[in-house]
């Protein structure tokens, strides 16, 4: 049984097709990345999963529970951390978490709340009013709020936007440990480096459609390659290399190489041609390149 399943989900807002036939499934225990430019439909899909948006057609389920027909079970199975920082200014951090637990029918949840506070480095702020917290701390409270009912599926909608480096590290450590403990994670982010490091499988969305879906390794192998980035001080590329080389947006050239041994070969050819090398770097395949290529390909289709 997939942790999340979407089948032919359509949603229209006025004339905008926010979801234009989305089908995908996330397996239990996966760390799944949902990527795409702004307005691709990622947040709409997540909102539909949590019942904030109702799909015009198609079906969506969490842990086998349909999000509309069996909404109570579906919502118990998922914890969503929304993109925008929102909070209730009337309450303290602990009150916020106790109240959120109560909404799920959990009246004696103090032990888990304490653990969440500790894991998210919020213990010292437990009795502070939500208003008094910094943006990053409010974000961590939102993560805790999404986890009060220990959902098997955790959805994070751009959780690290505007969050400082240290906090980002703590957050990922925590989320990784949850994933290791068996929770399914669905993540959207604009930081493709993060997605590449964390996600085992990725879906890319554009204009309400899924335009790429596969394992991170598979997508990297298909759409990106290891390149040698060369900047020359003087001289030109020998013809054999020039035929393969691409201009590097950062200046210089990008020469595809199958493995690191080929770098030596290319270097020897450059020396033979009398070119003086200013800088040299082996760049590993990057998700960013995959992303850019797929988004460009989709533009051509339109």
């Amino acid at each position, binding site marked *: 049984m997939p942790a999340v399943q979407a089948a032919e989900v359509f949603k229209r807002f006025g004339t905008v097709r926010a979801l234009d036939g989305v089908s995908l499934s996330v397996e239990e225990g996966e760390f799944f990345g949902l990527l795409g430019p702004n307005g691709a439909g990622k947040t709409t899909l997540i909102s539909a999963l949590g019942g904030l948006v109702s799909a015009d057609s198609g079906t969506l389920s969490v842990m086998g529970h349909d999000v509309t027909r069996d909404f109570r079970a579906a*919502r118990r199975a998922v914890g969503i951390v929304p993109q925008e920082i*929102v909070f209730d200014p*009337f309450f303290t951090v602990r009150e916020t978490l106790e109240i*959120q637990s*109560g909404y799920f029918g959990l009246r004696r949840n103090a032990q888990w709340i304490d653990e969440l506070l500790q894991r998210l480095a919020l213990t010292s702020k437990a009795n502070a009013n939500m208003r008094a917290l910094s943006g990053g701390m409010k974000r961590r409270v939102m993560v805790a709020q999404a986890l009060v009912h220990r959902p098997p599926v955790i959805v994070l909608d751009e959780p690290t936007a505007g969050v400082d480096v240290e906090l980002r590290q703590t957050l990922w450590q925590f989320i990784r440990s949850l994933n290791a403990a068996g929770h399914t994670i669905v993540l959207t982010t604009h930081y493709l480096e993060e997605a590449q490091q964390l996600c085992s499988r990725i879906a890319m969305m554009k204009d309400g459609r899924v335009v790429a879906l596969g394992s991170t390794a598979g997508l990297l192998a298909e759409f990106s390659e290891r390149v040698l980035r060369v900047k020359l001080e003087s001289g030109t590329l020998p013809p054999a290399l020039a035929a393969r080389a691409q201009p590097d947006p950062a200046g210089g050239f990008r020469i595809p190489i199958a493995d690191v041994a080929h770098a030596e070969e290319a270097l020897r050819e450059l020396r033979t041609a009398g070119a003086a090398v200013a800088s040299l770097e082996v760049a590993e395949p990057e998700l960013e390149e995959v992303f850019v290529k797929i988004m460009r390909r989709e533009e051509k289709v339109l």
Partner: protein
Amino acid sequence: MTGFPTLLYKEVLRFWKVSFQTVAAPVVSAILYLIVFAHALAAHVQAFPGVSYVEFLVPGLAMMSMLQNAFANSSSSLIQSKLTGNIIFILLPPMGPAEIFAAYLIASMVRGLVVGLGVFAATLWLVPVPLQHPLWAVAFAIVGTGILGVLGIVAGIWAERFDQLAGFQNFLVMPLTFLAGVFYSMHTLPPFWQSVSKLNPFFYAIDGFRYGFFGQSDVDPWTSLAFATVTLAALSWMTLHLIRRGYKLRH
């Protein structure tokens, strides 16, 4: 019913944390009305035989404050949650439409009743009023604050900006409560305005509530109770339907 008790608790805690503004302030306003009107009109108006004008005013003023505060509670809570976005913390958990509706409604009634008790507590030493039929008073307090609590839910869900909510409050709730016979007996009005008053559901709430104190009213309390209860039931049914459809809450 998983989240209902907590949502109710949260809604009560929310107004109780700022009770200076949500309870003390309306009590003070009611007392000011009482002092000013009693001074200006006591010699001129006799509403019910054997009841002084100041006594007559107390239950009406209490009920007016109860109605206005019941409305204020659900409407302000909902619009604040919508505008700040924290309404999602209520929409994401597994709570059904009836649970959400009941929690907001009952919290509004609690706020109204607390304000009402405050008004009586504060006026007790100024103007002691008899309480001839406590059950009638309680029944109308419940139904009256219920009607306004539901209206507050509707307004809070419907309004997208504070000024829309203020419009609802200033052009509908205020006039209807103010002109519901708080300051006068309907029988002192010209016949035309008497029939207009009879279309105002808040009039029945106030008139019936007053019956509980003096055993006298403009309209038979059973008629008033029937009218008010039907209004409450119809509004509740409609509002529950709106929430079930996700009107302006789930898109």
